[in-house]
Structure formats: structure tokens, C-alpha cells
């Protein structure tokens, strides 16, 4: 059977260490290059090359590898090869784009061809999760070839054909150490435009599309050729505040804004109920550290108006609301509804739609984030440690400085004991809910549609993988 998967962005590079984009580059490369650990459709970690991994102490990880695994060219896929890969990404010469994931790794020791030990400079509980995004290159081959354009399979598939900017066609890798591939060919076809993607699915040209507008779900299901739906993603949508500028430096104002937005209404009306309203935190339920006890700010415009009056803040100036163009599912629509509801409580909101790069530049480079900005963030390890760190005092991304929150995060990081960490993040999320450095909106639904020729388990993160799919009976 043949399989075609629609991507919205082309594969830019075939070197898995030079890209951090899960949705396109890494998804395709994960078919070609193996990883130690895989994240299954249920978002739980599974073994791949590594059959077992244990935390020996707070800073030492021990991995057991499969025996006899090789790359297609016969190169051994052993502990030595893994060490070489970890050394490669940490090499400052290379400037690997994913180097920051491994900046805590201090030492990699090969114990035997199937045993590996990794030491970190401080506790790194999410290391195993991070490794699920780390693909392994054949060391020998890499020295002799340019991995940016050439590939040497070690995963279930190998490259048959590449059309730059358009498609990557894969075929089974006979030398793969794991379960044999189920599709004769797997094509990753780039279709940037949403309408085009859906049309391609309905026309039978592709078998899987993701990121479709929720309104299409019913229509696709009714077509009888495909199945559409949504699951909670790991991406959480918020209106981030720049708390360093007035009037958002005033906590009462921030709380007022949270009361002013009808999160439930947005989730229902704009997303046909497929989005999960946020529970007063930036974490969704699939994250480690999610706090199930928090309640969202109720939708109460009266209260909001009252709080604004009490806050004593000067609200006469227009408040700029930055929205990145075309990156989030129905983002512009959400922004307009939010702006309209904020207008209802008497604020003067001015939406500016920005090119994503310009937006990011404002956010991180010139550090002039607008008072309000639409932002959806996810952390690939699905761990509070990552996502919450983006709000930590002193962090570039934070635009918020709360010592209690910082202390709670530090406590969470200092331990690898899940119970300790859980408690710490409970505190952190409570502080964050109370201090409201953002309007917590909803968890973005991961929408999808796949043809009835295949089966697939939908997942909330960005991976799209053929080996998660099977030909339909």
C-alpha cells in the first residue's frame, strides 16, 4: 500500500541536528533516522534503539541498547554511535540548532556496545523526553558525506526520491532493526494552503492532513471517504501580557482581563467545542505538572469592569494587541473575538497583525512585546519544567517577574522525584493563576483528517509518522 501525508511546510534540511521543527523536518527524518526513545501516539515514551533507560542518580542516566542494529550501509548502531551523535550536537563548531536541548549533558560514557551512560551537570528529568526528538546519524558515513542533502537510513524507511520544496518519497529500509515498514511508499507532500490540503484529501490525493479548521470536521466525516476529528494538543493558547509596561504591570488589571474573556464561549463557538478551555494555567492536561485543581476565571464582564475601576490604572491610551499572522489555528478569529470582548469592558484595543518573524523579533530580539499578544506555546517534552520556565524570572521569554513563581520552579527542577516536582508545579501554577501574566484561553485542538484507506491514532503533538499508521483492512 502507498501512503501520502500532507505537510504544510517543506523539508528544509536533512541533517536532524540542524533543525528543531517537529512538524516538518523532524517528522520526515524520524522515518529515516532512528532515535533512542520514541513518543507513542498516547504521548507516552517507548523504547526504540534503547530498550531500557534508568535514572541511576539525580544526574546519571543509564541506557541499554538493542543488539545488532545497523544502518543500511552496515554501520553499527551501537553505544559508540550514540555517543558520537551526542558529541556532535554539543560541538560548538557545528552550531547544531538543537544543541540547547543537551546543554546540561556533561559526559557520555560507552560502557559496552549496548550500554551507555550519560551524566548531566544538574538534574535533568526531561532528558528522556528530549531524546525522543534526537535522531541518530551514522558516524562513519556522516564524516564522508554531507548529511544536509544526503541520507543513510537507519530507521524504518529510506529515501527514494526528493523534489526540493515539494515532496519526499520514502520506501522501506530492508535493514531496519525494528518492525518492518507497512507501506510500500510513503510520500510527504507539501501543500501550504489549508484549502488545498483539504481538497487534496477529499480528492484522494493524500491520506492524512492536520491543522484543518474545525468547521471542516463534519463536512469531511460526511463525505464518507475520510475520518476527521480533533484531540487536545500540547499547544496552549494565551494572550500574553507584557507586565513590564503599564497598564499590565497592575495585577488587578490583569485579573480583570481574565474575567472579561469568555473562554468557554470561544471554545464552543469558534472551535465547535473541540478546544478545551484553559484551567487558569498554560499547561494542558497532557503535561506533567498539570494542576487539575485550578478553576478558570469565570466569564464576568461586570466584575472585570469593576476591577478595572478599582485598579486605578490609566486606561485611556489604546492598548496594542499583536497577533502573528497565519501561524495558529484560527488565530485571527480568536484575536478578533478577544479584542471585541475587551472592548466591551471599555478598553481601547488595537490589533496589529504581524509577520511571524517580525513578531518573534519583537518578542525576543528587540524585546518590545506589545502589552497584549496572542501566543500559543508547547513544550516538546510535555513537561511543566519546559513550558513554565518560559515565565521564569529573568527568562527572555517571560515579560513577568515573580519571585514566588521562580522559587517554585527552582524547587521543581532541583529534584527528579515526580512527587516533589508535582508539588512544586502545583504551587507554581497557583501563583501564576493568581498573578495572571496572561489570559489563559484554551488548548488548541489538534485537528486532523485521514482517508479511510488507513488507520491512525490521532496525537496531540506535532509528529506525523507513517509508522503510527496502518493500511486499513
Amino acid at each position: 500500500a502507498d501512503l501520502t501525508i500532507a505537510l504544510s511546510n517543506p523539508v528544509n534540511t536533512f541533517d536532524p541536528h540542524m533543525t528543531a521543527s517537529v512538524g516538518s523536518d523532524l517528522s520526515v527524518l524520524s522515518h529515516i533516522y532512528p532515535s533512542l526513545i520514541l513518543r507513542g501516539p498516547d504521548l507516552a515514551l517507548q523504547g526504540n534503539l534503547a530498550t531500557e533507560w534508568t535514572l541511576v542518580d539525580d544526574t546519571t542516566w543509564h541506557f541499554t541498547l538493542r543488539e545488532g542494529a545497523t544502518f543500511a550501509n552496515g554501520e553499527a548502531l551501537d553505544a559508540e554511535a550514540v555517543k558520537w551523535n551526542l558529541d556532535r550536537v554539543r560541538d560548538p563548531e557545528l552550531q547544531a540548532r538543537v544543541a540547547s536541548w543537551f546543554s546540561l549533558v556533561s559526559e557520555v560514557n560507552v560502557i559496552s556496545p549496548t550500554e551507555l551512560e550519560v551524566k548531566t551537570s544538574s538534574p535533568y528529568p526531561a532528558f528522556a523526553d528530549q531524546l525522543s526528538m534526537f535522531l541518530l546519524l551514522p558516524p562513519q558515513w556522516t564524516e564522508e558525506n554531507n548529511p544536509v542533502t544526503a541520507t543513510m537510513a537507519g530507521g524504518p524507511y529510506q529515501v527514494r526520491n526528493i523534489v526540493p520544496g515539494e515532496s519526499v518519497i520514502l520506501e522501506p529500509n530492508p535493514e531496519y532493526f525494528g518492525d518492518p515498514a507497512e507501506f510500500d511508499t510513503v510520500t510527504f507532500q507539501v501543500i501550504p494552503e489549508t484549502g488545498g490540503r483539504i481538497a487534496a484529501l477529499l480528492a484522494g490525493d493524500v491520506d492524512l492532513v492536520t491543522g484543518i479548521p474545525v468547521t471542516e470536521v463534519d463536512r469531511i466525516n460526511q463525505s464518507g471517504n475520510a475520518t476527521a476529528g480533533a484531540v487536545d494538543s500540547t499547544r496552549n493558547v494565551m494572550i500574553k501580557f507584557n507586565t513590564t509596561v503599564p497598564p499590565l504591570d497592575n495585577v488587578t488589571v490583569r485579573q480583570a482581563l481574565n474575567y472579561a474573556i469568555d473562554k468557554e464561549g470561544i471554545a464552543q463557538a469558534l472551535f465547535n467545542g473541540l478546544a478545551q478551555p484553559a484551567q487558569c494555567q498554560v499547561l494542558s492536561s497532557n503535561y506533567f505538572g498539570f494542576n487539575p485543581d485550578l478553576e478558570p476565571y469565570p466569564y464576568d464582564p461586570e466584575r472585570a469592569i469593576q476591577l478595572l475601576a478599582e485598579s486605578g490604572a490609566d486606561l485611556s491610551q489604546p492598548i496594542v494587541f499583536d497577533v502573528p499572522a497565519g501561524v495558529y489555528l484560527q488565530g485571527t478569529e480568536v484575536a478578533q473575538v478577544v479584542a471585541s470582548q475587551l472592548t466591551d469592558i471599555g478598553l481601547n484595543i488595537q490589533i496589529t497583525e504581524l509577520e511571524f518573524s517580525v513578531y518573534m523579533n519583537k518578542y525576543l530580539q528587540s524585546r518590545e512585546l506589545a502589552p497584549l499578544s496572542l501566543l500559543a506555546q508547547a513544550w516538546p517534552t510535555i513537561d511543566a519544567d519546559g513550558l513554565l520556565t518560559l515565565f521564569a524570572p529573568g527568562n527572555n521569554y517571560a515579560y513577568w517577574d515573580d519571585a514566588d513563581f521562580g522559587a517554585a520552579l527552582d524547587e521543581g527542577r532541583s529534584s527528579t522525584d515526580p512527587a516533589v516536582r508535582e508539588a512544586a508545579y502545583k504551587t507554581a501554577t497557583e501563583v501564576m493563576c493568581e498573578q495572571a501574566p496572561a489570559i489563559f484561553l484554551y488548548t488548541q485542538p489538534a485537528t486532523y483528517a485521514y482517508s479511510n484507506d488507513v488507520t491512525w491514532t490521532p496525537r496531540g503533538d506535532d509528529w506525523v509518522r507513517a509508522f503510527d499508521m496502518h493500511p486499513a483492512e
Partner: protein
Amino acid sequence: MGDFFASLVKSRSGLFGFVLLTLLVLVAIFAPLLGLASPIRGDLLARLSPPTWTGPFNPGPHPLGTDEVGRDVLSRIVHGSRLTLMIAATAVVLGGVVGTLLGIAAGFYGGIVDRVLMRLVDIQLALPLMLLALLVVAALGPSFNNLIIVLALTSWIRYARIIRGQVLSLREREFVQSAHAIGASTVRIMLRHILPNVLTPALVVATLELARIIIMDAALSFLGLGVQPPSPSWGRMLADGRVYISTAWWIVTFPGLTILLTVLSVNLLGDWLRDYFDPKLRTSR
């Protein structure tokens, strides 16, 4: 003026264009007085409602349906006409004035001025339009003014080229020579003798440009560079609504038709204007 209207009435298509355009402009001017729903505030619960008509002459609350956040499409089209026509008109005027003046300067002075300006035209042409727009908006930030600047920037060369050609032949005309002979200043010659004689071709270009710019706004909005939400413009509506093209056809269809009508009317008027000013088609002598 009497001749103008007499001829307009005689040319049925020209009259049609004129009436239609006048109507559009009137609607744009009086949009707030028409008692329509707010073009900005929507009713989330009424999102994507189809056009409602209880009878052929009995429109419901949303005669053209509602959009993706529950705003009345009719109201957005009507209010959108203000922004759209304003953008188009401003860009056309800006591009027209700059292009015409530079075209006159290039044609009149010739030599180095001409060469420099024509190289600028080359550069502008060699730089793909959309990319230029993308770069400028990305660099200057999106705003109403920048949008107009981009549109005008893509537009001036068309005037400059045509006007330059006209001026090249005009400056050899004897009345221009005669102006030199009485000692008129260069500025005077350009403004009093050259300019009035290139206004017709400039006007004809302008009618074509108006249509092109309205479409450009749509294409720019497609790349997220158009009018800022929630303000309505036709191009923006079209671009935002395209996602719903198969589930809610009315969101794109109606603004699309409006654009078509506008372009049609401007073109008809333009064609007629061209004929009207064509000396070969006028009663000569």
C-alpha cells in the same frame, strides 16, 4: 462638461460604469447612516450563518450571512467599501502623482535624469512585486499607511513609463518650443504645458490601476499583509474567508462579486474615458 455627459449617456457601457461607481462611492460615504449591524462586533453564536431571506423581498437579519466570527457580511462589505476605496484611491493618487511627476521629469530633462529614473523602473520591475510588498510591510510594520505605500510603490512605474513616452514626443511639440521662446521657466513649461497634456493617459492608467490595486489588496491579505483586523476591506474578507470556501461560500462570494462589480465599473469608465479623449475618435477640425 455638457459634451462630457452627452457622450457618457450615449456610450451605454460608460454610463453603466459611471452610475455603478457613483453608487459605490455614495454607499461608502454614507455607510454609517445605513443602519446596518456593526461591521466589527460579531455575534459568536451566529457564526457562519448562511444568508437569510424569508421571502424574495424580505431579508432576514443577515441578508448575506455572517462571517467566521459572526459579523454581518453585508455590513462588512458596505463598511469595507470605505477602506477599500480609500486605500485604492489614495494609492492610485499617490502612485499617480509620483509616477506622473517622475515620468514628466524623465521625459522632459532626458539625459542623466532619464537614465537614473529608468534604471529605477528596471530595478522595481526586476524586484518581484509580492516580495517587495512583503519586504516593505515586514520591515516597516503593517499599518494602513504602509499598505498604501506598498501599493503606491508597485504602481508608480506604470505611470512613469507611459507618461515619459508621452513627454518625449510632447517636448518636441511646437507649443512647448514656443514656451521656450517666450522665456518661460522650466517649471512653468512642465506644469502648464506638459502636465495638462499627459493627464489623460495618466487618468486612463489610473482607472486600470484602481482595479489592480483592489485585487492586490486581496493578494496581500492572503499573505497576511493587508488591512489590519478587525477593520473590513474586501480583499481582507476574501482572504480570511477562503478557509471557509466550501463550508460557507457566502463569506468569499459576496466580497468577490463586489470587487468584480467595482473593477467592472472602473474599467468600463476607463475604456470610455480613453475613447472620449482619443483625438482620432473626436470630431476633428
